C-alpha cells in the first residue's frame, strides 16, 4: 500500500513527479468525479468503496483487476482516459479543501523514478504556490466537491440493495470493492426507478456504468451472481417461466447453421459478452509484466 505524507513535510522544495503509470498496481483504486465516470467506464472497471465515511466510486487500476493493460509493452500509456486523480498522482487532498493548497495536499511516499522524472516546483519565485501545483489543486478540489453528490446517489444504490462485492483473490490486502448485480438491479420496479430519479438521474448513470464497465473486469474477480437464470432462449420458455427475456437471446435463431441456442446466448454475463464481440476503444496491447508494488 502507498503511504502519504503532508506536502509541507516533504523535504525538497520541488519534486520530480512520478507518472502514475509506474504505480498502477500499488494505487489500485482512484476516485472519479461526476463529469468523468461515464467516460472512465469505457476504459476501467468501476467499483464502489464502502470503507470510508461515505461511499466512493472509482476506477480500478491494478493488473489483478483489469482485463486490458493500460500500459504498452514499452512502458507507454496505451491512451485510455486518465482520471483526474491519476493525473494528479502522487498528490492528493488530505481532507476537505480549505483553500490553502500547501496545507491541503499530501504526497505519496514513493522512491524516485530515475528514468522519467517530471519536475514541478511547489513554489514560484515569490514563494506562492506555483501554477503547476495550483492546477493540480483545482482539479482535486473539483473532484472532492463532486463526491458529496455522488455519495448521495450511491446511497440510493445501497438502499436498493443492488451492490455486491467483487470476488477478490486477496481480501485481506484490500478493502472490499463493490459493483452492481445486474440481475438484482433489473428487477427494480418502475416506482423504485422513479424514486431513485426523483431529484437526479445520477444513480442510474452510476448503476449502468458499474455494470457496463464490468466488461473491463477480469473474469475471475467478477461477482458471483446469486441467480442462475440466464436469458431465456425463446419466447415461449420465457413466458412460461415468467422471465423477461433479452433481445440478444433471439438472435441465435437466425444462425443459418441451427435453431438451437448457442453457448453465446446462454452466457450469464450478457453485458460483458456483448462488449467482447469487438474490441472497444484503443487496441489491447501486449501486457507488460506486472511491476512489484513499492
Amino acid at each position, binding site marked *: 500500500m502507498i503511504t502519504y505524507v503532508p506536502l509541507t513535510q516533504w523535504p525538497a522544495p520541488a519534486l520530480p513527479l512520478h507518472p502514475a503509470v509506474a504505480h498502477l498496481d500499488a494505487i489500485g483504486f482512484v476516485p472519479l468525479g461526476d463529469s468523468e465516470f461515464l467516460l472512465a467506464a469505457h476504459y476501467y472497471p468501476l467499483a464502489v468503496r464502502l470503507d470510508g465515511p461515505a461511499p466512493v466510486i472509482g476506477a480500478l487500476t491494478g493488473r489483478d483487476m483489469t482485463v486490458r493493460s493500460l500500459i504498452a509493452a514499452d512502458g507507454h500509456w496505451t491512451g485510455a482516459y486518465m482520471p483526474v486523480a491519476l493525473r494528479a498522482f502522487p498528490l492528493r487532498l488530505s481532507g476537505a479543501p480549505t483553500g490553502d493548497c500547501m496545507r491541503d495536499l499530501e504526497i505519496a511516499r514513493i522512491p524516485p523514478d530515475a528514468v522519467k522524472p517530471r519536475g514541478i516546483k511547489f513554489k514560484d519565485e515569490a514563494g506562492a504556490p506555483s501554477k503547476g501545483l495550483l492546477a493540480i489543486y483545482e482539479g482535486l478540489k473539483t473532484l472532492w466537491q463532486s463526491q458529496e453528490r455522488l455519495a448521495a446517489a450511491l446511497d440510493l444504490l445501497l438502499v436498493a440493495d443492488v451492490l455486491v462485492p467483487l470476488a477478490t483473490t486477496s481480501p485481506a490486502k484490500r478493502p472490499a470493492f463493490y459493483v452492481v448485480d445486474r440481475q438484482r438491479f433489473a428487477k*427494480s420496479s418502475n416506482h423504485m426507478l422513479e424514486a431513485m*430519479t426523483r431529484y437526479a438521474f445520477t444513480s442510474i448513470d452510476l448503476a449502468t456504468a458499474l455494470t*457496463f464497465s464490468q466488461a473491463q473486469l477480469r473474469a475471475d474477480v467478477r461477482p458471483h451472481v446469486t441467480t442462475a437464470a440466464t436469458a431465456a432462449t425463446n419466447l415461449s420458455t420465457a413466458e412460461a417461466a415468467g422471465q423477461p427475456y433479452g433481445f440478444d437471446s433471439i438472435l441465435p435463431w437466425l444462425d443459418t447453421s441451427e435453431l438451437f441456442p448457442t453457448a453465446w446466448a446462454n452466457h450469464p454475463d450478457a453485458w460483458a459478452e456483448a462488449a467482447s464481440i*469487438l474490441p472497444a476503444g484503443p487496441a489491447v496491447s501486449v501486457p507488460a509484466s506486472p511491476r512489484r508494488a513499492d
Partner: protein
Amino acid sequence: MLYERPVPLKGDVLKQRIFSPLAYENVRNANVIAITAQEAMRYASHFPIAWHRHENRFELIIVRSLLADGRGHPAASQSALPFLPALCRAYPFMYEPGMYQPGRHEPSRHFIDVAVADAPTDVGSPICFPDGRPAKATAQRIALLDIAAPMFAETAQIAGRLSELALFEAWPLHFENIEGYTLDVADLWIVKQDAISTGALAPVLRRHGIVAADLIALHRLSLFRTGIMLANARAALRAAPASSAPASEAPGAMAEQQS
C-alpha cells in the same frame, strides 16, 4: 439509409432470391440504423446511440460511422453477422414504412426492400418455395421482425414521452476540415444534459421502467464513442480520398470543404 425501395411482400416479388444480409451494400454501409431500446446494451460500447428526428418523430438509432460510403466503421464490425442490428439481420424484409409507430402495430404486414445483392456470399435462397411455403431464411427473418415489433413500438413510446416532456436537445454531429472534408450527420438529438441533475426523467422511468433507465444511461455512455468514430473517419479519409458520392440530404452526407 438502409432501405431503397420498399414494396409489399406479395405477388411477383415473392419469386426473388434473397441472400445473407451482408451481401447487400446498404446493410454493410448504412451509417445510421434504427435499433430497439433492448439493443442498446450491445452497441453502447461501440457506437454513439442517439435519436434521429424526422418531422416530429424521434427514432432511436446508432451511428456506425461518420461516412456514408461504408468506410470509417470500427474494425471488423461490418463483416460480423452476429453483430448486425435486428433490422439488418432481417434484411431485406422490413416493416411497412412507419409501421412501428405507437398505435400502428400490425405484424402481418411485411414489406421487402428491393435491392441488388452486390456481394453474394452464396447462391442465396428463394423467398418462398413453389408451393408457397416460406424458405427457412425467410421464416427466420420474418420471425425476427415479429418478435421485435413490440420492442420497436415500446422504443417509439419512450421517444414520444421524452419528446412530450421536452427532454431532447439537438446534437450537431458536424466536423470541419477532416482531411479537407466537412462531415455531418444531420438531425440527431440526445437527452438534455441539464435534465440529468433534476428529476425531469423520473416520469419516463415511472411509465417505462428498467428499459428506459437502461436506454437513457447507455445512450449517455455511448456518446463517448464519438471521438473514436471521428478518428476512424479521419483515418479512412487519409488512407484514400472520398469516393464520388455526392453530398445529399440523407444523414452521413459529406461535403468537400470549399477552401
